Structure formats: C-alpha cells, structure tokens
C-alpha cells in the first residue's frame, strides 16, 4: 500500500483520457445538444408566431365581416329607400296618367255630346224643314221661304 510509479502511469492515463474527451467527445456532443436546443427554440418561436398570425388573421376576418355586414345593411337600406321612392313615383305617375285619361275621356265625351247635339240639331232642322216643306209645299213657294228656314236653323 505504497505510493509508487503506478501513480505516474495513472496520471498519464488520466491526461490521455482528458485530452481525448476534450478534443473528440465533449465539443461534438455539446454542439449537437446546442443545435437541438436551438432547433427546439426555433420551432417553439415559429409555433408562437403562427398562433399570433392566426389571431391577427381572425381579427382581420372579423373586421372584414363587420365591414361587409355594415355595407350590406347600408345597401339594403338604400335599396328599400329607392324601392319606396320608385313605388311612390309610380303611384304618382299612375295617378297623373289616370287624371289625364279621365280628362281626355271627359273631353271626348263633351265633344261627342256636342257632335251629337249638332247632328241632332241638323236632323231636327232637316226634319223641321221637311215638315215645313211638306206643310208649305201646298201653300208656299219653296224658294221664298228657304231664307227664313236657314236663318232659324243657324240660330239653333
């Protein structure tokens, strides 16, 4: 149980082991570990970023949806307004047209009345003349009394 040259042998072995581990083992394994750590961190960061992007997209979609809804309701309101206007307008125009038609019909009726009055008057006149003629044929000359008949008929 004494210290002897074995000690030196052991120190040499120890030094060789340390050298080998330092040179060929530790850096390689440590680099691999660091690399994996980096990869994992990157993956996590990417996942987080993705989630953030999803949130952002959702927000954006919500915004878009809201604008679209607003716009559509606006459009609907506008359309309703326009439709109301159109209905009102058509009502007005229909009323106007009706009034016009009524007026025209009235005018026509008046005219026709006038015409039939004229015709009737003429016929009455003619009848009267005929009657008078027949009455007078026996009594007076036709030419002599023509003037008087016309004067009367024009007064009718």
């Amino acid at each position, binding site marked *: 149980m004494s210290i*002897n040259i074995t*000690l030196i042998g052991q120190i040499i*072995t120890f030094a060789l082991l*340390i050298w080998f*581990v*330092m040179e060929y083992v*530790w850096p390689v394994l440590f680099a691999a570990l660091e690399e994996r750590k980096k990869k994992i961190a990157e993956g996590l960061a990417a996942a987080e970023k993705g989630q953030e992007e999803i949130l952002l997209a959702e927000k954006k979609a919500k915004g878009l949806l809201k604008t679209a809804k607003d716009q559509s309701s606006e459009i609907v309101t506008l359309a309703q307004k326009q439709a109301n206007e159109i209905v009102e307008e058509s009502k007005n125009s229909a009323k106007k047209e009706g009034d016009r038609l009524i007026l025209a019909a009235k005018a026509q009726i008046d005219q026709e009345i006038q015409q039939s009055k004229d015709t009737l008057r003429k016929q009455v006149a003619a009848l009267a003349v005929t009657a008078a003629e027949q009455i007078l044929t026996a009594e007076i000359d036709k030419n002599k009394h023509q003037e008087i008949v016309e004067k009367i008929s024009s007064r009718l």
Partner: protein
Amino acid sequence: MATEAHAAEGATGYIIHHLTPLSVGEGFWTLHLDTLFFSAVLGGLFVWFFKKAADNATTEVPGLVQNFVEMMIEFVDTQVKDSFHGNSKLIAPLALTIFCWVFLFNFMDLFPIDLLPAIGSVMGIPYLRVVPSTDLNATFALSISVFCLIIFYNLKIKGLWNFSKELLFHPFNHWLLIPFNILLNFVEYLAKPISLALRLFGNLYAGELIFMLIALLPAYLQPVLSLPWAIFHILIITLQAFIFMVLTIVYLSMAHEESH
C-alpha cells in the same frame, strides 16, 4: 507484503491476499499492473462509448445511447455552470472524465468479490485487485492532476504576482501575519488533493473490506448481508464519483476567481 500474504493463513490470509496488488518492480519503481490494466480498460470503455455516441450524434430525435450520453453531458454541464463562472474549454470535459472514470473504478466493487481474482488465478495470475480506487496510486493520480491544474490556473488567471500576494496576504492582510498566512494557505492547498484522494480511497477501501468480511461469513449469511451492502454501495460509488467531480469543479473555479 507479498511474503506476509503467503505466510498468513485463514481469514487474515484471505483479506491480505485480496488487498495485495499484482505488482512488478521494487520499491518506488513498483508497477501495480492490475490498477493500471483495469483503469486503462475502464477509461477505454468510457472513451469508446462516448466517442461512439459523439460519432452518431444527430440533432434529430436521439436514440437510447445518445439520450443517455446527452443526459450525462447535461448533468455535468449543469454542475459546471452552477459553480464555475469562468470560461474554460477544459473544465467540463475534465469533470465528465472524472465522474465517469471514477464511477467505473468504483463500479468494479460491485462485481462478486472472488469472481475476477478466481478467473485470474486460473489464468495464473496470483494477485488481482480489481477496484482501482482502492489503490492510493489511482486516487492520488487523479487528485494530484487536479492539484496541478489548480496551481496552473491560479498562475494563469491571477499571474505569479497576484497569486503570491494572495498566498502572503490572505486571509489576514497584515505584513506581520505573512508567515501565518503562508502556513495557512500551505495547509489549505495541500489539504485539497489529500482530502480528495483519501476520501475516495477510504470509502472504497472500506467498502471492499466489508465485502471481504461478508465473504468470510458462512454461506447462508452472505446474501442476506452482501445484498443490502451492495445496494447501499450503488449509492456510495455514485456519490463518491459525484463528490470528486464537484470538488474538482469548485477548486478550479476558486482558482479562476480573483482574490478578495
């Protein structure tokens, strides 16, 4: 010692036989072949295993071996980062080597105590001490190397001037107390390698001795005692390796820090 072992018989002879290393040479020039052989084999095993893992290292999903090795690396790295705040390429690999190598040294203790010596004696090897950490040469080789590194880093980081100043004026900053400081620092520095080496040696030597004593008991008693002791020993061998590593890191980080 060898002659004594031949002379003694019975229990004492058994124990002495187990504690006698296979050696060549005389006096200081004695080589403990078993210590050298087993520590080299265990060191080779460690290096081979880790080198293989390093060669196959990927950044993809790791396999079983890589997972284990990475766990060790992370474990050692955490220990180093916890107590060492400098920047050194050496200290982490050094800590890993110490932990694994010492653990493998100690692990030899868990082999049945007579197995390897019996195989050895069949092959014509008279003495075989399989646990390198029960050899003071092995533990002192580690601690003296660490001590040299402590001195080296003290000189490298602080410079000869500051290091000497620290030895002379620390902990008592007065010129009258210089001799006292020198004595104190001398003891402090010397205590480091000695305590490192003797703690490991003592624990494992005692553990081995208890295995031997159990082996001397009647056969029906042996499993009842050696099983709990072996299970307890799993804790001890890991703990001793861990302590050696952590103390090494702490000593080296102290060497890196500027004096107060």
